[in-house]
């Protein structure tokens, strides 16, 4: 009984599996039938169509380059544009004899060995039926010459495209950078498909930082071409999407004024909007014309730029580091107030030098006979070294480091430009880590007047002044104001958050320092009083000198025999400033290399820049209250 039941189960199970196998067979036959129908459709019904595609013609996919986004300054000037240009392109598989063609081509078109070498390199990376550019920026004459002989060069053709042009030339080279030809390294860092039609990529400056936004998205065309490579018709097309236009915070007119103020000297000017961190002007002098880099700069021309003792390719505004010198003193005074190490009224006697206990080395003040009795404001106004030696000794290096850190010293500001240097804000830990040496007391003293290990970029200095001008608020410096995508979509405003970087014990402590800085330029005893003469507004500043050669300098730039010292060994002149004194609109740092002293070289530059911004651009003029505090 049990056996027969089991047998019945076995039979039922067997039938189930066999039904399933039959069903499977039906499905297999049906699906293979569908496959055959598809094959019949392609091979019988549509056969003629595909024969056309495969034999007489070839279907090719042509990438379409997107139009690179334009760059405008804050005052509406177009500073990076696209102009039509002609290039000579080659489809390798259509050239019967490449070597022979190149040889004959050299007779009618100017081809350098470098062009050929680069072309051969590009040949290896592309498929045989893809376009490879041989020469860029053909002259109209060359285009005409080639067009006459075109039939003798199968596979070669002239392509019209857009080429980047910087109408302001050197004026914005350190801001915008330039676009250069894509090399293998560049390709590794981008989406290769998106760059399949792109010949240039941002190198340096805003062109590099905003490469992704400016570039846009590649389009493509599926085209039919005949055996000679002529496009017969477009089968399908997806247009490229242009890159976004970039609007800078930088004001071209101010940039020009700052460049002219530096006139022929080496140095840098960085002007920021203290409220937003927007860069108003960023000058590194000397600069270079970026346009030859777009076309492909000649070896000799490049070597000349590279080997020039003035180093025009070097962006002093954010890559160069200088000892801040006395420009650090306002920050040291703030540190003293912050830690309660000094009251504003407490005085120090300056006999012209300072000595540490148990050390017979004399640390001199720049004023040999001494300043006499100095309180905090007087010490800033007259830039008394002895006051700050003593202050530094009380603060100690690590507290100085911690406080300066709030202002961004020793850290990259995070500006949207590549290659920024970090500078040095020294501390015990820093010296141990970088030099494996202990900290010596004497080093604290010279750190107190911004010499020794301290190193800052002009940009860092301008940022620190911004924090000071806004009484402790910090916004990351940025060049980009907004991005305007194409086709018109929501524009993207770029505004980094404003954060509180430092809070003093008493809000009026800021006034002590800013009032002193005001007197530096507009007081009777200020080190930069000459440059502040006749200003229609109240502003604040501080001079500084980066010692290069260990010769004592006069902060006021007087009584120094500049002519005795070779120009390149003279000290760098520094100046920081913000204006107007109340509700500041501009904060800036100026460095004039080998300018001897900050008051004689850098302070007048700052005055010119501030005059231009407040009077010409903002039109504030008489509206700004002028007065002594």
């Amino acid at each position, binding site marked *: 009984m049990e056996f027969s039941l089991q047998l019945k189960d076995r039979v039922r199970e067997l039938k189930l599996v066999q039904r399933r*196998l039959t069903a*499977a067979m039906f499905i297999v036959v049906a699906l*293979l039938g569908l496959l*055959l129908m598809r094959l019949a459709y392609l091979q019988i019904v549509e*056969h003629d169509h595909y024969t056309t595609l495969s*034999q007489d013609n070839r279907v090719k*996919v042509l990438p379409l380059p997107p139009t690179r986004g334009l760059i405008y300054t804050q005052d509406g000037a177009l500073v990076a544009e696209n102009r039509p240009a002609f290039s000579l392109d080659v489809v390798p598989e259509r050239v019967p004899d490449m070597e022979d063609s190149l040889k004959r081509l050299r007779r009618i078109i100017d081809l350098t060995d470098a062009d050929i070498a680069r072309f051969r390199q590009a040949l290896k990376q592309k498929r045989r039926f893809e376009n490879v550019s041989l020469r860029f920026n053909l002259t109209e004459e060359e285009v005409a010459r080639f067009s006459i002989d075109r039939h003798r060069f199968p596979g070669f053709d002239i392509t019209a495209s857009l080429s980047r042009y910087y109408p302001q030339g050197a004026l914005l080279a350190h801001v915008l950078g330039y676009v250069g030809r894509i090399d293998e390294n560049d390709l590794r860092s981008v989406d290769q498909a998106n760059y399949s039609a792109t010949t240039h990529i941002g190198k340096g400056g805003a062109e590099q930082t905003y490469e992704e936004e400016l570039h846009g998205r590649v389009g493509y065309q599926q085209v039919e071409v005949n055996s000679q490579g002529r496009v017969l018709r477009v089968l399908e097309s997806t247009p490229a999407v242009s890159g976004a236009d970039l609007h800078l915070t930088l004001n071209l007119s101010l940039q020009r004024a700052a460049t002219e103020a530096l006139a022929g000297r080496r140095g840098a000017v960085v002007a920021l909007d203290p409220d937003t961190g927007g860069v108003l002007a960023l000058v590194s002098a000397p600069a270079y014309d970026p346009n030859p880099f777009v076309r492909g700069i000649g070896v000799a021309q490049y070597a000349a730029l590279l080997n020039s003792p003035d180093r025009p390719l070097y962006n002093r505004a954010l890559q160069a580091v200088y000892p801040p010198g006395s420009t650090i003193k306002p920050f040291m005074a703030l540190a003293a107030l912050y830690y309660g190490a000094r009251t504003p009224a407490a005085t120090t006697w300056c006999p012209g030098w300072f000595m540490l206990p148990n050390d017979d080395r004399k640390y001199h003040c720049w004023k040999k006979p001494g300043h006499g009795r100095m309180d905090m404001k007087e010490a800033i106004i007259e830039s008394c070294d002895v006051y700050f030696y003593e202050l530094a000794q009380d603060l100690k290096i690590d507290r100085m480091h911690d406080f300066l850190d709030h202002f961004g010293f020793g850290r990259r500001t995070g500006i949207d430009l590549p290659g920024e240097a970090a500078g040095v804000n020294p501390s015990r830990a820093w010296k141990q880590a970088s030099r494996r040496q202990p900290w010596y007391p004497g080093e604290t003293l010279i750190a107190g007047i911004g010499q020794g290990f301290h190193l800052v970029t002009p940009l860092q200095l301008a940022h620190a002044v911004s924090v000071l001008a806004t009484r402790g608020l910090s916004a990351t410096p940025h060049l980009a104001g907004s991005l305007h995508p194409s086709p018109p979509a929501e524009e993207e405003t770029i505004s980094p958050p404003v954060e509180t970087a430092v809070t003093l014990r008493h809000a009026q402590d800021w006034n002590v320092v800013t009032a002193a800085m005001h007197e530096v330029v507009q007081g009777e005893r200020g080190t930069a009083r000459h440059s502040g003469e006749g200003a229609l507004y109240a502003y604040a500043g501080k001079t500084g000198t980066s010692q290069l050669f260990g010769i004592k300098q006069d902060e006021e730039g007087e009584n120094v025999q500049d002519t005795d010292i070779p120009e390149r060994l003279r000290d760098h002149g520094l100046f920081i400033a913000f204006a107007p004194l109340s509700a500041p609109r501009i904060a800036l740092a100026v460095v004039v290399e080998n300018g001897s002293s900050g008051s004689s070289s850098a302070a007048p530059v700052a005055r010119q820049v501030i005059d231009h911004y407040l009077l010409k651009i903002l039109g504030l003029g008489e509206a700004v209250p002028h007065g002594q505090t």
Partner: protein
Amino acid sequence: MDKPESLRLRLHVDPLLLAGILMLGAAGLVVLYSATGADQHMVVRQGGRMLLGLAVMAGVAQFKPETLIRLAPWLYSAGLILLVVLNFIGTGRGAHRWLDLGVGRFQPAEIMKLAVPMTCARFLTAGDLPPSWTRLALSGVFILLPVVLIAMQPDLGTAVLVMAAGGFVIFLAGLSWRAMLALVLVVAASMVPLWSLLHDYQRQRILTLLDPQQDPLGAGYHIIQSVIAVGSGGLFGKGWLQGTQSRLEFLPERHTDFIFAVVCEEFGFAGAALLIALYLLIIARGLSIAAGAQDHASRLLAGSLSLTLFIYVFVNMGMVVGQLPVVGVPLPMISYGGSSLVTLMAAFGMLMSVHTHRKKMLF
């Protein structure tokens, strides 16, 4: 007992199946010669692999199906361990697929193409048919464990094949049609919330997989050129060694995954149909062997292996004619390559084992 039957039974060979395999192999070498651009060296190497495969097939056929089924859990465990280990010491072009054995490289995922259906067949037939929900659920786990590991390597093609091999056993074991429908609906429904969780670029990648025309500079290029090759072949083809699409190097992967396009271009609809007929013959023979098998386990195993061969063929050809997404599945016996060829031959060996070890009384 008559003589000829005893001979083939003693050698454990099924002449019909063997004939189909040999014809397919010969066709494969002929097409490969053209697809490699008349590279004799590659053809000889592939021929050598086929001989090795035949030896493996003959070897496997000597075991009784019961023995093979008994080995299943061991094979499965070994394969699983290797897959896990592979994530740490695997070598290969970016993907963790290969295990270097010193003498040669070997893909543990291949083991799973056999071990998964064997294990499922054994496990599901240990109880009544149709299987209980518990057994079904556990078989699901047996299948998904290696599938996930293989998909992570990432080898989507093999993962699909292993999943199919296991799925077919469940299907043949009698999972009710209604349950299958429900499963399909659940999977489809789970796609909707999953889709909304994906990033834009991930969605784009999936869309490109489904519709390569969206990416004509990348994956779409393969499909466009492949379809032109197929269509331009016409009824009788351009002739052996005459395919312009493949000769002129327009067709990518022409000696591996896209070799069917070469068949279509050079031998036309007639040649492609003949090839499909050959596959149908082998699949049908496999299914008939399954139907005549002596016990449920070998029945399910033989059925699943035959249907997996079908999936191979269908996924590959569907891709070449531009109807299925591009996943890396070779055309069995025709595409250049050794690893999956040997696995396939071992599977044929199992079919022969199932067929030739039956007890006489059931004839």
